[in-house]
């Protein structure tokens, strides 16, 4: 078994090594015809720009790591300066440097990688999946008997912030930086999944397709790990299956199939993604597009509003926010699969809780105010509201919250700060659901009388950094806005103290001065109960 696992690690590392070396490899050469087509497709009217860029890149070989976007940036700057001076506003170039560079690369790649897409897929994704599974599946045997399998978590480099954890951190952060800000380097990755993208949407893959495919792949493989680790815990098995289903079907497949059916919008539409997590839902371009496209567009618009205003809070009333955060949500799904090995790093200090409340509610306020601006702008057709350019608010949010916080920090920091950094400190939807869960819900984690021995397993493994023990040892139920109901506190409790349940609101919050069973004054206590 150990041998199979070691071979698995080796195979995984080969696949992973090829994958991370791809941005540094490959050859690109754009011919005149493709260049002309690209300029037309991008709607570029500036002859200066076209001539300069043509001189710089057409029929020239450029290798993997040589930056294209800086060339595009220089050319754009020069062209735009001239057009500004000549007041030729319609000729100015607005395409993003990185976006254009990415398109150029995608059009111009040649050589081994784009010519052997299926083989390359197997050498990267294929080996990665195979190796991981060879490591994970033998755990059915090696983990031994039924029970909690946390032995050695704080002895291992990967799960105790050792060098492996830091390497994973560096990889994840770099990956997100490339994805969001240097996507030209992701072009080689897009070739690997071109065949899959073609078969789904009929289009070639973009770097966002790579991300979506990778997200689903990583979640699936790590879900297998969840199934093995928690195979005797039915709550965990069902929950993992649920997040996996919603990610693969709702976040990945349906939007791709909609493209194939020519029902697509600028935004790939994920029916389960609720505003304000889906922060650009009310952006004017999206509203315009949805309203203008008739039937389905209007349905999406109404569904989106219903989801946020009715469905989500009503479900939180009955089941707690867990139904969304750890049964449906894609961010939650990644946190619960890829992030599970790191759940113990979520800080449980009071200080973190303070930071959390300011940050997460701050983001919610930001999202709501921004949406107010965009809606006002949409209905009044104004670009400037209260002296602030609406677009600039949207850009600020997209950059700092959508990309940096949710992506780079939210996932990149898993190995160091735990797996729910985004959900805990940043997600505006989580903050909104948190209000409902805290003030109007049937959900609670019941503390089982006075059985708690203060061991701290629950607090250690709470991915939201809730000091569960602080409640349990007082015999108090846990009613916290941040709880995503992952159920791990209940699983790791050695004394059967915690149970996630939905019950009557009455008595849900039960501050207790004296432990159950300490009948210090029986008569008084009985009277109080009546």
């Amino acid at each position, binding site marked *: 078994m150990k041998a199979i696992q070691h071979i698995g690690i080796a195979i995984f590392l080969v696949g992973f090594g090829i994958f991370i070396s791809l941005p540094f490899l490959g050859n690109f050469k754009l011919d005149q015809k493709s260049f002309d087509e690209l300029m037309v497709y991008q709607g570029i009217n500036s002859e200066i720009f076209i001539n300069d860029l043509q001189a710089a890149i057409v029929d020239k070989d450029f290798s993997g790591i040589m930056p294209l976007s800086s060339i595009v940036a220089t050319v754009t700057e020069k062209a735009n300066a001239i057009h500004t001076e000549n007041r030729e506003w319609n000729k100015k170039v607005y395409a993003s440097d990185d976006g254009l560079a990415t398109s150029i690369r995608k059009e111009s790649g040649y050589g081994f990688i784009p010519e052997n897409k299926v083989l390359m897929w197997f050498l990267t994704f294929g080996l990665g999946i195979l190796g991981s599974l060879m490591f994970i599946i033998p755990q059915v045997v090696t983990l031994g008997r039924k029970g909690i399998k946390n*032995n050695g978590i704080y002895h291992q480099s990967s799960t105790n912030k050792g060098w492996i954890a830091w390497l994973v951190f560096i990889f994840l952060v770099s990956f997100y930086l490339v994805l969001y800000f240097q996507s030209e380097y992701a072009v080689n990755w897009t070739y690997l999944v071109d065949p899959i993208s073609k078969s789904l949407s009929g289009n070639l893959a973009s770097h966002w397709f790579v991300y979506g495919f990778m997200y689903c792949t990583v979640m699936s493989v790590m879900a297998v790990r969840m199934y093995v680790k928690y195979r005797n815990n*039915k709550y965990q098995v069902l929950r993992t299956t649920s997040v996996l289903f919603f990610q693969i079907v709702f976040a990945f497949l349906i939007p791709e199939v909609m493209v194939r059916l020519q029902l697509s919008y600028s935004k790939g539409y994920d029916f389960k993604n609720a505003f304000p997590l889906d922060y650009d839902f009310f952006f004017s371009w999206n509203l315009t597009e949805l309203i203008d496209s008739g039937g389905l567009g209007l349905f999406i618009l109404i569904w989106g509003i219903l989801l946020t205003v009715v469905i989500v809070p009503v479900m939180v009333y009955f089941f707690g926010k867990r139904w969304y955060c750890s049964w449906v949500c894609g961010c939650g799904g990644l946190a619960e699969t890829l992030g599970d090995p790191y759940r113990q790093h979520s800080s449980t200090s009071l200080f973190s809780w303070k930071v959390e409340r300011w940050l997460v509610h701050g983001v919610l306020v930001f999202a709501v105010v921004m949406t107010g601006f965009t809606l006002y702008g949409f209905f009044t057709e104004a670009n400037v509201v209260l002296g602030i350019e609406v677009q600039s608010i949207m850009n600020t949010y997209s950059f700092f919250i959508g990309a940096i916080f949710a992506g780079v920090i939210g996932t990149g920091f898993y190995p160091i700060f735990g797996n729910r950094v985004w959900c805990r400190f940043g997600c505006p939807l989580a903050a909104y659901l948190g209000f409902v869960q805290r003030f109007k819900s049937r959900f609670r984690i019941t503390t*089982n009388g006075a*059985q708690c021995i203060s061991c701290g397993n629950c607090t250690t493994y709470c991915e939201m950094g809730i000091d569960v023990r602080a409640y349990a040892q007082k015999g108090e139920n846990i009613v916290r806005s941040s709880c995503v109901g992952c159920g791990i506190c209940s699983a*790791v409790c*050695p004394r059967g103290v915690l149970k996630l349940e939905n019950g009557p609101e009455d008595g849900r919050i039960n501050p207790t001065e004296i432990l159950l*069973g*300490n009948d*210090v004054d029986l008569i008084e206590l009985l009277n109080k109960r009546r």
Partner: protein
Amino acid sequence: MEHIVIIGNGIAGVTAARHIRKNSDKRITIISGESDYFFARTALMYVYMGHMKFEHTQPYENWFWKKNRIELKTAWVEKISGADKTVSFTSGESMSFDKLILATGSLPNDFGWPGQHLDGVQGLYHKQDLEKLEQNAPDHKVCKRAVIVGGGLIGIEMAEMLHSRQIPVTFLVREDSFWNGVLPAGESALVNEEIMANGIDLRLNTNLEEIIEDGNGRCKAIKIKETGELIACDVVGLTAGVSPNVSFLKESGIELGRGVKVNRLLETSVKDIYAIGDCAEQREAIGRRRPIESVWYTGRMMGEALAQTICKKPTPYNPGHWFNSAKFMDIEYQTYGWVSGKDKPDFEEQFHWRHAKEMICVTIAYHKDTDEFLGINTFGIRMRHEIFDRWLTEGRKVDEVMTYLKDANFDPEFYKPYEKAIVKHYNQQRGKQIQPVKKSWKRIFA
């Protein structure tokens, strides 16, 4: 301002301190030599097993004590004087008090085995024991085999710990089945199976004769009394129970038995000195409880009660229905009320159900003549404390318990229910026709 001094920063002392602070403005000092801050002794095993770091065993952050004006003193107490109202430390310093609370906990039992002071021989109680074990048994290369002596809760925990690092373990148990003084035969047998299924070399009916030295002051083997067999080992775990940690009180004038003798107000024989937790011994046992209770929650409850008394609201220690829980390797155990082990009282009858394949079983005790429900033990099923506490107070009949068993289930959602099988077996055994009733929130929160 009245100065309350508490010796011992375990659960009893810390609970007393917290509740005194909640109810008063008195000056509070907690003294401990073992650790600077309160930690959960129950969690030491998880540190060794790599589930947690030591800091995770501390239920309060370090700023908590200053914020709540609870002074912490790191020192070992040498002796106390009730007449002068002073505590003397081994360092030579001393401290005066107005009221003193003894919450010194327990020490591992020591049966005077030859070789018990050798290196590599240790108990598992204090923080220092954990550090010692980390040195003695860091892995299965340094520690090729460990022998554990004493078949109680700490013994099986230590076996689990060593097993988690793939260290082969031989487990010597004096009784003919694990913990059968407490557990009914069927349950005790189930734990035996669990121990052996984990590859632990369980030796029942086996006593330690001596621990053999390697010539350098370390243990190298043990000898078994019954057979004379030698078992080579690098670590010997002595886990034959604990006793109150009171030897430093011998000359204090405080009346001692095995522990510090206290009345229901937790007062010792000397005015203004109290004792709580493991070190306290009730002059008369409360109900069927033992006079000395080394249980986490009783320490807590004594702390809560005494804090009231000290804050001018005299409150006897009055623990309600017995309950407890433990975990044997991977099997959770809970108990509510009284279910007897080997020495069952005459009036007690037991019903036992065990799952055909899984390590799950239930034992329910009831009164032979009146059918009154006396208690329940569950293995591998979680039960709701509140429900059984109520049922015991109400003096429910065992048939009623069976009928409403689903109300008492506390297993996580979607877990397989076993009530049907349990009740079916009960019906067969006792010739009854009970139908288990659907769970009702109304009854649970009645």
